[in-house]
């Protein structure tokens, strides 16, 4: 079994220029995670800088309304407002250990960009973030935050001007500068060992959740739900539950205007296996094998591929992947605001929307955990635009 693969997915589909870099990264990463000092350092920053552990909150009014216990894993309460910082701290500590002075990153919603800019400021590194021109427009707040933190934000205007293209440009920049630059990938995608690194640094979400749930309920939850773009919060949320066969795992992709309209970002419902961004995985493609543009109201889910381990978990049947439209997500977002006083990111609202559907099939003796991957401050312009002509 080739460790670089998850079944038929994964691998290293990159140029020869990057192969030595990936080999070195693999060796250094394995050494680091086996080193108690590195782990202690990571744990220290998670607690004292990021503010972990994050609460596992029983959403009381939602629980009452839907008739089953709905717990929220509050990743939105992390420093910088989303789960992305967990992985950034891990990778930047590794970059520092490897003697790199510069970091680059791609970003969609801007949360990973902000987290990377934050980590770079914390450790005094030079930081460049690649972001699609369309995302720069719809996530203006995060662009400004990155600049305040001292990062350079490069506007990418090719293809769809979104995360896919920002990733292409980051890969190009990385190939040029790999000798002194560390590429911090934010999602569970890319060439091996990135999908594994992202999973290991996001695993803290499910490690805490499992412990917290056991303390509260004395058992494991029936169902765990998380949204999937590239799949970083979801792989972190699933990691410790994958071997717990009685826990149902559900990943929620973005259905955009609806799968049937073709304007969606659901790589696993209609995508075919392909190769992009250094990995083999499910990929939205047109009839010539070109990558199709994804669509989602959520910049963080607007990606035509998905992490290779998710593709594997789908095919093996261990995780069920479903999709939620823009409209369903926005309704769920407002419901969480109004009923629990929490403004979630539109990404996380996709997981919530499916959780509400799922809850109707469950009862008061059962419980689910939904990963609230980020907070919604960055999305207020999108929300305002969306509700311009309809009642909020």
């Amino acid at each position, binding site marked *: 079994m080739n460790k670089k693969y998850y079944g038929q997915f994964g691998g290293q589909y990159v140029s*020869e220029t990057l192969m030595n870099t990936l080999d070195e990264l693999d060796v250094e990463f394995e050494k680091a995670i086996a080193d108690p000092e590195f782990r202690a350092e990571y744990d220290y920053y998670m607690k004292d800088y990021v503010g972990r552990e994050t609460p596992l909150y029983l959403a009381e009014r939602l629980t009452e309304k839907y008739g089953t216990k709905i717990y929220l894993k509050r990743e939105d309460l992390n420093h910088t407002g989303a789960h992305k910082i967990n992985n950034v701290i891990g990778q930047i500590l590794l970059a520092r250990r490897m003697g790199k002075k510069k970091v680059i990153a791609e970003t969609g919603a801007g949360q990973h960009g902000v987290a990377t800019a934050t980590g770079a400021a914390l450790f005094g590194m030079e930081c460049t973030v690649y972001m699609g021109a369309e995302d720069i427009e719809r996530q203006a707040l995060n662009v400004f935050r990155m600049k305040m933190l001292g990062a350079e934000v490069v506007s990418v205007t090719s293809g769809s001007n979104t995360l896919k293209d920002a990733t292409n440009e980051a890969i*190009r920049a990385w190939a040029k500068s790999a000798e002194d630059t560390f590429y911090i990938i934010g999602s569970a995608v890319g060439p091996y060992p990135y999908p594994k690194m992202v999973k290991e640094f996001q695993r803290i979400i499910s490690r805490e959740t499992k412990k917290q749930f056991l303390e509260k309920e004395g058992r494991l939850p029936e169902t765990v739900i998380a949204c999937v773009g590239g799949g970083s919060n979801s792989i972190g949320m699933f990691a410790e539950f994958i071997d717990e066969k009685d826990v149902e795992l559900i990943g929620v992709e973005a259905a955009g205007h609806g799968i049937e309209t073709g304007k969606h970002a659901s790589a696993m419902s209609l995508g075919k296996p392909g190769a992009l961004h250094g990995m083999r995985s499910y990929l939205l493609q047109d009839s010539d094998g070109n990558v199709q543009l994804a669509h989602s109201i959520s910049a963080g889910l607007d990606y035509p591929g998905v992490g290779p381990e998710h593709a594997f978990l789908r095919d093996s049947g261990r995780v069920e992947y479903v999709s939620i439209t823009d409209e369903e997500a926005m309704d769920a977002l407002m419901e969480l605001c109004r009923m629990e006083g929490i403004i979630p990111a539109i990404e996380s609202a996709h997981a919530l929307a499916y959780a509400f559907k799922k809850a109707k099939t469950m009862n008061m003796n059962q419980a689910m955990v939904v990963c609230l991957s980020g907070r919604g401050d960055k999305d207020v312009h999108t929300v305002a635009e969306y509700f311009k002509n309809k009642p909020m």
Partner: protein
Amino acid sequence: MNRIEKKLKELEEKKQKAFITYMTAGLPSIKGTEEIIRAQAEAGTDIIELGVPFSDPVADGPVIQAASFKSIQLGTNLEKVFGIVEDVRKDCQIPIVFMMYYNTILYYGVERFVDRCIASGVDGLIIPDLPFEEQGEINGYLLKKNAPILIQLVAPVSKQRIPMLLEKARGFVYCVSTMGVTGQSTGFHKDIRKYLSEVKAASSIPVMMGFGISSAKDVEGVKDIIDGAIVGSAFINLMEKNDYNVDVIKEYCSTFKKELNA
């Protein structure tokens, strides 16, 4: 004998260096591409890299990205590029190498792709996102009779990987002159001579250099080491600027070839 190997053997006998160009298929049109291939064969270009356009060309700089995008907009796809080769092969035997991304092959079907290369007369493949370790799948089919040669790419940082990359390499070795993507004019890698010499010493087949070359004088400083030069972005810029005028293209190719061997 494979057309690439045959051509390289001829050049070796004539003690000539190879001049290789890259062009994106489908520009200015399918017919136009066919004419330019024939014109280059007459002008003295030794091998042609034909780019199969892809939506996400991560190994390419802005010039080839823009050319790919434009060609896709014009409706170029893999099937049409095979059509170009078939048409050219009626009266022209210049070696043709497809430069393409692996997803295009995966989508088409790997075995079906190789069979179609054999049937249409494609001599070689350059797949920049298919490094040595991932070549097993396609190599299984490249054992077929008259299958194209998978050209191996070597980078300035390949170092200890070089013997592995070269062990079974056929045709020629493609040495990337710089870190990064095609079409950068930032100069070659700082250790270019040392790097090329290492590859040359380890290689039993000709060593070509590509990335960031626009004229024969760009390679003056390494001409004693390499067996040929590959021009891509600069060639596309020239064609674009001159509205794909065949006479200008012929003049550029024959001049480059002459100066390279001066």
